[in-house]
């Protein structure tokens, strides 16, 4: 009976084959070699298929190249495939150099950038010219660097270099440009005052607390009291003192190095010899090194919440920071891993796993204390010092508990990190680094800033290796080093409940990080 079944099955299949048959189909199914297609698992290559040859990434073609010109200007380029390139000039001038000037010079210059120079009469003309080159241009200033950059079509490099050199070295700084910048800065200062978002203010305050009165502790934004002192003469004095070729780097991504060097010689060096602010005149440049002082800065302020579009709770913000290291220090990478480990963000942050919801400030702080609205770790690092801080936001009545939670988190760091947690933080840092470096403007800024600061560029691979080598001992060591420095405390909002500075300082020296218990009979 079985035999009869199989015979009929065989006949069934043979008739199927006949109905589907073309000569190739038959041979495909029936030839013994290709019979393996049906039975070979996907993890094993097919017997007769050609051997694949994988593309090798030749590391030599992706090397950053640097040259130094006779006048001190550094030119650096990073090859990258693509039709567009990003080129710019980075200058070692920022708010940290403004001790002898009214604060906010660099910020003012940022507003006056690309607004009219010897070739292009006004901002519209500059924008039109850049559009013709197929791209966009922008100026950005920070505490220690000012960047003038543009992304354009790759073959339009020469006109772009001419435009950049002209904008940086030959700005006309007309009265109406200066007035417009002043108006926009007034508006910005107003906004900063009224907006409930603490962000730019808290950064200013924690820097002021950590580096009192010097270099990076100086305010980045112009202060209302001294804004009127910024005029064409003082701007030109600042430019004359700091916009020197030896303080500049011309960086390009997606360009040919020799071409970039030749064009820099032709346009940038030439423009540097006779800038619009004239080389004779008063100069005052400052070579101060950043000195971490620690200390407290409190700003008692009432936020007008009726101004915000979204209903916002009333919040007080506090940031507690301690001395970290400069970015050339060997402990810089452990601090970066520490930053990732602490992580944090807003409590209403919607996101899936991998967004950082497993960082310590989420797990131990935001998930446990419903009244904490936000807790974030920041690491600010400069070429001669740094600041690591944790910023928390809560209702003003909970401010003491907020500080308590932060000091306890700091103190826990000396107990060591679990391996899983540490590996997660390292992987997150590496992936964040690599993902960001996929964007050309970010590569440009990375190459430019590294060359400006240190003269050499650590490739992403080198950075990833350095991150891999961070161990638990490194984290504990940097945490101890940090906790031995004097804390910097900044607070904004209704800060009446903020604990005394001495209490916070003592809490950070204790292994459990607890604030002293205050017996309050009549409240504070």
């Amino acid at each position: 009976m079985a035999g009869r079944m199989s015979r009929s099955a065989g006949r069934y299949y043979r008739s199927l084959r006949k109905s589907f048959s073309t000569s190739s189909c038959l041979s495909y199914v029936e030839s013994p070699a290709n019979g393996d297609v049906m039975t070979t698992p996907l993890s094993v290559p097919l017997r007769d298929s050609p051997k694949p040859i994988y593309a090798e990434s030749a590391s030599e073609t992706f090397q950053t190249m640097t040259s130094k010109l006779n006048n001190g200007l550094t030119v650096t380029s990073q090859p990258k495939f693509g039709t567009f390139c990003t080129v710019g000039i980075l200058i070692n001038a920022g708010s940290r150099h403004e001790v002898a000037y009214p604060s906010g010079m660099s910020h003012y210059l940022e507003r006056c950038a690309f607004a009219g120079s010897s070739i292009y009469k006004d901002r519209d003309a500059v924008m039109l010219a850049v559009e013709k080159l197929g791209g966009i241009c922008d100026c950005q200033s920070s505490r220690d660097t000012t960047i003038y950059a543009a992304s354009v079509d790759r073959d339009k490099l020469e006109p772009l270099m001419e435009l950049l050199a002209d904008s940086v070295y030959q700005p006309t700084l007309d009265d109406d440009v200066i007035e417009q910048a002043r108006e926009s800065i007034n508006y910005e200062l107003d906004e900063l005052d009224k907006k409930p978002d603490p962000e730019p203010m808290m950064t200013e305050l924690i820097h002021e607390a950590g580096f009192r009165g010097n270099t990076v502790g100086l305010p980045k934004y112009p202060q209302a009291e001294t804004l009127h002192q910024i005029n064409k003469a003082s701007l030109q004095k600042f430019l004359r003192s700091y916009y020197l070729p030896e303080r500049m780097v011309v960086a390009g991504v997606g360009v040919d190095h020799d071409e970039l060097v030749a064009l820099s010689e032709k346009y940038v060096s030439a423009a540097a010899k006779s800038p619009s602010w004239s080389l004779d005149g008063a100069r005052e440049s400052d070579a101060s090194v950043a000195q971490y002082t620690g200390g407290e800065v409190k700003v008692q302020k009432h936020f007008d919440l009726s101004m915000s579009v979204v209903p916002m709770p009333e919040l007080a913000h506090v940031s507690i920071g301690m001395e970290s290291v400069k970015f050339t220090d060997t402990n810089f990478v452990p601090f970066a891993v520490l930053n990732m480990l602490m992580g944090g963000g807003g409590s209403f942050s919607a996101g899936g796993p991998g967004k950082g919801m497993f960082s310590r400030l989420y797990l131990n702080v935001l998930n446990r204390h419903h009244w904490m609205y936000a807790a974030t770790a920041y690491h600010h690092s400069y070429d001669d010092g740094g600041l690591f801080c944790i910023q928390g936001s809560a209702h003003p009545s909970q401010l003491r508990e907020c500080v308590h939670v932060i000091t306890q988190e700091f103190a826990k760091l000396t107990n060591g990190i679990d391996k899983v947690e540490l590996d997660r933080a390292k992987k997150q840092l590496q992936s964040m680094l690599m993902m960001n470096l996929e964007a050309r403007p970010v590569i440009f800024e990375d190459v430019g800033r590294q060359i400006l600061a240190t003269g050499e560029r650590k490739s992403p691979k080198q950075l990833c290796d350095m991150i891999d080598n961070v161990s638990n001992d490194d984290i504990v060591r940097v945490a101890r080093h940090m906790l031995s420095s004097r804390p910097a405390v900044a607070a904004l909002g209704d800060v009446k409940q903020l604990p005394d500075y001495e209490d916070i300082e003592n809490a950070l020296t204790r292994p459990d990080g607890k604030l002293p218990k205050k017996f309050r009979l009549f409240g504070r």
Partner: protein
Amino acid sequence: MLRTSICIRLFKSRIKYNTRTAQNQLHATHCIFSTENVKKHVVKIAESLTSELSYSNSIKRLKLKNQAAVLVPLCTVNGELCLLFTVRSNNLPTHKGQISFPGGGVKHGDTGAVDAALRETEEEIGFPRNKVDVWTTLPHISNHTRTAAVIPVVGYLGEVNIEDMVPDRNEVTEIFTVSLTNLVNNASYTRFRIKAKKRSEHDYVMPVYFTQYRIWGLTANIVDTVLSIL
């Protein structure tokens, strides 16, 4: 606008002096080292400095209990002229972990600043006071808010070996020396801006030395004064 009092001007000129011409002026380390010659030179300059400076009223008003004295310990290590520093202990109430000279407050029972400095030195690093060759005292060096003033006492300790010294762990974590050439080569400065409330307040410049530990603040002020004399 920067208005300067005599103290600050003297100090500022020392910064420029140090960073540009200090190499030439450190004859004490270059020529054949004769303690007597250097001592005479230092004493002479210190005396002229003291007569030149006029103390501001606020320093004169400081009562004796607020006075402090430190010993500026010049010594030789393997024949090289150095300064000796201490790392303050974390157990102390103020300035934990910072670099300082041995010294402390002038207490009852001390005959003066020199005596206080020598007593504190003996307590903190265990160097016997009778072995210190006191050369001179320098004028008060005050902190920038003029709330405290310290009298530096320049003394010569001779050839020392750090290992032989026993620090008092309650006050001193570590003792180390830095050669004068090392200090000069690693000198830098920071200019501080303050929100001046009175006409007498103005920006000030502080030196900083990046040797194995960062030396800053009042200690760096004293180092700068001493280096500019030598």
